[in-house]
């Protein structure tokens, strides 16, 4: 198993950095919460990690995970067409894309895995429902079941609990902890700090600049949080060129 290492990473848009000079690594099997105020670069970092955004400076060493499609990713704002005529089962089965591809068929083992994934997220019995009939929470459960089926060593989730009720959060958190127990590497953007304190061993606190990265207890101090609030402001239109030299 390999981890993801960031070397002096700067990501951003139109030359303005949104993640500025970030170095560090996500250890194999670690479970890291990425926290910070709005606009602190959390989603930008996730887009960088998943290869949707190219670094402006520095690099990300994923040990070939990206080329081998071993990173499962749940975006924050899904570009999913919720009115699309597709059933819960078919949506979940998309998670098997790498195994069955364009033309492959299902076999007994795969059907069992799919049933297992559905029951883990508590959707047993809803297989033939159309996804436009689901509530927001149920739909997120579908997305989690699909992620389970992908069977990736690295999973990245961007605010999966937006507008999700408490019970669903607890159920899905149990799924996430299950992935952690299986030794997968997890990164998740979260806003709920109590959730982070309860479940996540590691935390990365961002405010465009990295504020702190390490054990959750040591990172989520009042001092660090205060500092993150001050640092994350809108970008400066007339900012000068950054000449910071990597450490």
């Amino acid at each position, binding site marked *: 198993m390999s981890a993801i290492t960031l070397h002096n990473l700067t990501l951003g848009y139109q030359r303005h950095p949104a993640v500025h000079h970030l170095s560090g690594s996500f250890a194999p099997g670690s479970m890291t919460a990425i926290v910070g105020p709005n606009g602190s670069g959390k989603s930008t970092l996730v887009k960088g990690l998943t290869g949707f955004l190219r670094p402006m400076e520095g690099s990300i060493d994923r040990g070939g995970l990206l080329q081998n499609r071993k990173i499962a990713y749940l975006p924050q704002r899904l570009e999913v067409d919720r009115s699309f005529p*597709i059933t819960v089962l078919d949506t979940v089965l*998309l998670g098997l894309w*790498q195994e069955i591809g*364009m033309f492959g068929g299902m076999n007994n083992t795969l059907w069992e895995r799919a049933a297992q994934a559905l029951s883990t997220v508590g959707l047993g019995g809803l297989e033939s429902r*159309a996804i436009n009939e689901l509530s927001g929470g149920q739909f997120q459960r579908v997305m989690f079941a*699909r992620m389970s089926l992908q069977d990736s060593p690295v999973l990245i989730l961007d605010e999966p609990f937006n507008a999700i009720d408490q019970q669903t959060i607890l159920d899905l958190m149990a799924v996430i902890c299950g992935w952690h127990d299986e030794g997968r590497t997890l990164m998740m953007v979260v806003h709920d700090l109590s959730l982070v304190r309860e479940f996540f061993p590691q935390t990365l606190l961002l405010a465009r600049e990295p504020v702190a990265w390490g054990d959750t207890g040591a990172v989520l101090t009042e001092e660090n949080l205060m500092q993150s609030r001050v640092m994350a402001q809108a970008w400066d239109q007339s900012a000068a060129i950054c000449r910071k030299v990597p450490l």
Partner: protein
Amino acid sequence: MNQLFDFLVSPFQEFLFMRHALAACLALALGCGPVGMLLVLRRMSLMGDALSHAVLPGAAIGFLVSGLSLYSMTIGGVIVGLMVALIAGAVSRYTSLREDASFAALYLVSIAVGVLIISVRGTNIDLIHVLFGTILAVDDPALILVASITTLTLFTLALIYRPLMVECFDPDFLRSVGGQGATMHFVFLVLVVLNLVAGFTALGTLMAVGMLMLPAASAHFWGHHFWSASLVAVFIALFSGYCGLLLSFYGDLPSGPSIILVAGGCYLFSMLFGRKGGLLSRAQRGPHLTG
């Protein structure tokens, strides 16, 4: 009874050009049904429209080279249609302009070029032919062309069905698992252009998109799945072709607009009475259930 049979069948029995036209409509319907449904699903209905206009300058150049020749106009239409689709796709991918806007910009330019070419070199009657088609002059080569395009369309759709569906539903996911979404999108655009070109020999560049969009938009009110809705679209297209031909035969009307008007009637009917979200089904919902 016999009279009714005569009324419905005899035009096709007696006249070869009516049989040809009907066969062309049959082939068109088979290809346009699923492709139109996909355009509706992908919210690209207006892009289909834009592409149909984009075919015009190609057809016009073909016309310029060899008059009202099917092959040169078809080849011209395919080349320019694909070019516009490709450029519009590239513009939306590599600049900040969205795809609908880039399609609109390109089709306006190309329709202006097309009309200009024809009006400089041809007569008004030629322009009418290119814009509105001459389905009653569909000959053997044209029939073979339309049938080939339909066959190619159906086989290609069967081949790329799975990734194309995923690309419609969740493009980011397909990208994250390396599913060649952009390629599928482009192959689909090629199919759209081919079907438009197949349509324009019969219905003209202005009306071709009608066979693509109207049956699909009507079928949206009937089918819950892609395949069932596509079947409905094929049948509506067939029905429109048949009735439209009869209408033009007995009423001495141009065939293209007749066919499209019948399809328009089907659309109106579906909108009013369609089971899936039609006006009437919305008004009469019935008492609510217990759970």
